[in-house]
């Protein structure tokens, strides 16, 4: 089982990811509403996989990706965001995220992306 942390300011999106993520592979260890919560939660839960929203209050996704990568570089981060700004998406990947999933997404798309993201991790 891989420890999954969900970071999104929208309650609906958080629940959707939690419900969609393949329960046989992912153990949702935490859900954060903003970057600051996510960084604190990462230290506590030791999450290996993170889904990351980009536009959030307090600490946005970009800064959060940077922080997480600094603390634990092997964390696999999947940016889950709307395609309104391609450049922000690219910036997140430059800062250490590994993939990008466009909102809105289906459960299948999420699981495909997560599967691709965690490829190569020993469980």
């Amino acid at each position: 089982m891989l420890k999954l942390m969900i970071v999104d300011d929208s309650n609906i999106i958080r629940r959707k990811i939690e419900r969609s993520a393949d329960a046989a592979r992912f153990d949702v260890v935490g859900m954060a509403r903003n970057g600051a919560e996510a960084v604190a939660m990462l230290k506590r839960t030791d999450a290996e996989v993170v889904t990351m929203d980009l536009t959030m209050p307090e600490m946005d996704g970009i800064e959060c990706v940077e922080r997480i990568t600094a603390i634990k570089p092997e964390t696999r981060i999947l940016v889950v965001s709307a395609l309104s700004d391609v450049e922000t998406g690219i910036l997140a990947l430059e800062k250490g995220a590994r993939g990008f999933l466009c909102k809105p997404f289906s459960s299948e798309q999420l699981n495909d992306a997560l599967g691709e993201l965690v490829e190569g991790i020993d469980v």
Partner: protein
Amino acid sequence: MFDTLMGKYRNIVVSIALFLLLDASVLTLNFYISFEIADDAVGVNLSGRQRMLSQRMVKSLHDIQYSAGDEQARQRALDELDLTQRLFSSTLNAFDQGGEAIGADGSEVVLEAANSSAARLAIVEAKEIWQPYSTLINAVLNADGELALNQALMPALAYARANNLALLKLMNNLTVELEHVATSKATRLRWIQTVGITLAIINFLIILVHFLGQLRESDKQIESARKETTEILETVGEGLFLLDKERIISSQYSRALETMFVRKELGGLSLEALLESMVSDKDLRTAQRFIALLFREDIKSNLIGDLNPLKEIEVNISDNQGHYLTKYFSFTFERVYDDGKIKDILVTVVDVSEKVRLERELALSKEQNERQIEVLTSILHANPDLLKLYLKQVEEAADDVNTILREPSKGHVALKRKLDQIFVAIHRIKGEASALNLESFEELTHEFELNIKDVHGKDNITGDDFLPLVVRLEKLVKHTESVQVLTAKLGAFSSGAKAPARSESISSDWHHLEDLLNKSSLRCGKQVQLFTSGLSEVPMSKELSGLLSDFAIQGIRNAVAHGIETPSEREQLNKDIEGKIELRLSQSSKGELEFVVKDDGGGIDIDRIREKAAELGIASETELESWSAKRLTSLIFEPGFSTAAEHTMDAGTGAGMDLLRQRVNAMRGRIRIASRSGHGTKISVFLPAPAAVSEAA
């Protein structure tokens, strides 16, 4: 890897190993035989010396004989004899049994025993002769005194004379035989060398032929692969090329690429150089960053396709005549791996201009179709009578507005009043459009309102500012006419669906309120449910039902826009996510009608009304502080008063409530508002008995 290498080159490796083995054995044999030959040469040399020694021994015997009286010469001859007989004897022994002998230079050499039959024969015969000869010579050498010497010398001399020639011949035979052996060995060596070299040459030729054959075969394969690649690149319709890490285009690329970019010799060019002046700098920079991501091993290429900035990019290409063409290209990027590492990026460029053009045309025609369908469905859905009435009202309103616009007036204040009058007229038909679900009219009137607001907000209004309003009015009139044409065409439908008779229940007309609610709540991002009761139980005139309907419309719009909270706000307040609006019509025993619009939203925001009142300058802030909630609430009915933060289609224009109050007053009715902060708002309209209304109307 070693296995595959062995598999591919096994023949060559085996051939080379054979070649080396052959060389090594020839060399070893050569080495060995040449040593033997060297030994044989020593033998030949020493056997030759035996011939000389036998002669010298005879000579020394004679020298001894003739040296009588010369003691010195005699001793010299004796020494000579001693040396030669020992040398001859030891050499003969060495030839016979093998062993040490003294070489030509005085050093010791080891001789192999001669083993050829001819040599053995010569040696055996020589030994037979030598045995007695050697005894006689020893007697000479060992003789003590002149007499004894002379006595020993005679038989020795006699034996020498008799046998020396035979001995000489035997030694000669030995020499010839040894020479023969050596020569035959040399011949054998030459043969071995010749055979070895021949085999080596044959081997080499086999290797050469085989290797050249393989080389030619692989060259052929490479050439045909290259030809295939070239053919593919020549004929393929897409622009294909490889990009390296520095974003340099590969030397091989498809012909189509040149055609697409109207440019030749693209190999070695950077992607930036290819695209500059065709796409914006921003897109180019984003593309650079995107490609850099593709070269990063830790990023999953399947997970970043959405970020490709060149997925469908507008490019401006100048053709050979210097004309600019606008095209749409779609770039896709695929990683090319070599030995598990990302080596290059395969770029595919497709001209999607036609697709984009078709998509746009499709979208445009879809939009037009939708608009037409929308108009059509709204007409079909609308109650035919109400629609006709509405169209008539729009016409009247348009006439009114036209009249207002034509009226000559001067000065900021007068023009502002004119604007207010136009606004009231337009706002009314907007509300009705919304209630009848006539989206096209709703949009047109909404835009009209926005336009009026724009002008209203100006510091110094002039006559020219009314020009856009004239255009708006024109548009509205045109649209009304086109709908009238459509309605006429659909006459069959409307005649089929007979309008309900007067004084029938209005329940069939209330569903438009549901539509209104759904649309408004969707626009405001809220979830609201409508509950109605008693609406179909009271018979009423069309005028009365129109008023109540307008009232309900205004109430619903206000509740959705101001009163009811967003689902997340409601969740935090521990309220049901879905808000409620209740419409209730009841009649007292005296016949008085009570119509209630009630919601469970946040109630009327008195502070916000106070702020707004202060902003509008209705009273000073300190005065407003002392106003009661009731008095502040009554401001809602003031013309032009609005509390919405922004002007939307659902709220923000205060004219609605103002008009309603006027209409209720005209029917001798009254309005009551009750509001509790956090719990909701209830607006009640009390009207005299319907019969009385009919009389009053």
